């Protein structure tokens, strides 16, 4: 009994179809998003995330249609991210049937959007998505993170799919976002994303310990044990994964059964 840890499949979308990149490149097509989401629902997914990776104006209507169809068929929480900039974008997505929106680059560019949206729609619907990368050049004002190999670094927020550094400290940015009204943090480490070596545990734990809101670990899961480590060592409240589920390497149910057998509270 109690609040369970969540397993969240992420569906990367392009023009209304599911794709998944390795390090955000080399995309492959893996089917209809609503059908896939429905399969995840049957497997026991706790939520579903739709990420529009090629967000553009033309894509927006397609995305709204996908959200609507998913909301009509699935009675579980739905988060939508990718290219969302304005309060109007967010309102459209929520009205189409999404419960939360995740903001990434636009939150860095115009952080006041977080304040405005949380005031209008509530903190619970704003997920601050942070993509981060290690920086070994230590300086004042950054949060030192001690890695397992003994080295010390800080984590820098990166934007535009990881292509641009910002100079912003990841831990401070998470705290800033929560103060502004973000209800959850979705943390993706570019160090581990797509390479299946496990979540980036040190930064996940550091952020989880420094904010009151739930933290979703993302990027790098390849084995059952990686999920366990994400929750126990990374102190994540939820773990997000894409390709291991899309290509049938494991089912959500098998992950949850494994976690339950190791004493992690999950909804089965």
């Amino acid at each position, binding site marked *: 009994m109690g*609040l369970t840890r969540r397993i969240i499949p992420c569906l990367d979308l392009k023009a209304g179809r599911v794709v998944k990149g390795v390090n955000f490149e080399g995309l492959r097509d893996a089917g209809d998003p609503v059908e896939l989401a429905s399969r995840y629902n049957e497997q026991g997914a706790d939520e579903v995330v739709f990420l529009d990776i090629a967000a553009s104006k033309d894509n927006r209507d397609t995305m709204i249609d996908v959200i609507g169809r998913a909301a009509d068929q699935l*009675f579980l929480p739905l988060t939508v991210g990718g290219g969302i900039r304005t309060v109007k974008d967010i309102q459209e997505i929520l009205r189409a049937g999404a419960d939360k929106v995740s903001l990434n680059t636009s939150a860095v560019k115009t952080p006041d959007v977080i304040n405005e949206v949380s*005031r209008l729609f509530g903190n619970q*619907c704003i997920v601050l998505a942070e993509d981060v990368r290690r920086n070994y050049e230590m300086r004042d004002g950054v949060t030192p993170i001690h890695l397992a190999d003994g080295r010390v670094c800080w984590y820098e927020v990166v934007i535009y799919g990881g292509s641009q550094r910002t100079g912003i400290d990841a831990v401070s940015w998470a705290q800033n976002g929560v103060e502004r009204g973000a*209800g959850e943090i979705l943390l993706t480490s570019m160090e581990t994303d797509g390479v299946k070596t496990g979540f980036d545990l040190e930064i996940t734990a550091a952020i989880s310990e420094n904010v009151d809101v*739930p933290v979703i670990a993302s990027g790098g899961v390849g084995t059952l044990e990686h999920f366990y480590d994400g929750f126990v060592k990374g102190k994540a*409240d939820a773990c997000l994964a894409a390709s291991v589920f899309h290509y049938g390497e494991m089912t959500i149910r098998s992950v949850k059964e494994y976690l339950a057998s190791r004493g992690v509270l999950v909804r089965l």
Partner: protein
Amino acid sequence: MGTSEVAVLDYGLGNLRSVVRGLEAAGARPKITNDPEIIQSADGLLLPGVGAFAEGMNKLAPLIDLVKKEAAKKPLLGICLGMQMLLEESEEHGLHKGLGFVPGTVRLFPKKPGMKIPQMGWNTISPSAHPLFEGIPDGTYVYFVHSYYADTTPEFTIAKTDYIVPYASAVGVGNVMGVQFHPEKSGDAGILILKNFVQMIE
């Protein structure tokens, strides 16, 4: 679709589509409205809600007297913020008056190391013998998103949940009921709870 019309009170900006689809799946005819005539003619009322308490009460203000009058005649279900608004008052961003159907105060979860606020995700409910929870066993998982909880007496508590503190995850008094969780986001169990609500209308 069934014959019972449920007026889904439209006073906010959030996701109402899911609650409408949930009610349809439960066999009702939902209608998103703030039209007093439709509220009067409806067989049941649903008070949805996400967002902040004071903002919600402000937006509902023009309908408050009507909602109070109609709730005496037909079932009303509040969801999430809609449930919190059934209480006398809330401590969210200062003290604000609620609808006052249920005695008690809406309070912020106390801080506890390792426990996140908001509570976000799936937790269990322990329902009491109430028609809203017909067929819902103790320990059923439902989806919650909230930072504030209803502090009321056992007499008005129709389901309990434990998160940081034990609290009322559902309240009820006569025709008026409220659930802190989102039945429209809680899979089959949530739809069954909505069906039970629709049954009470028919």
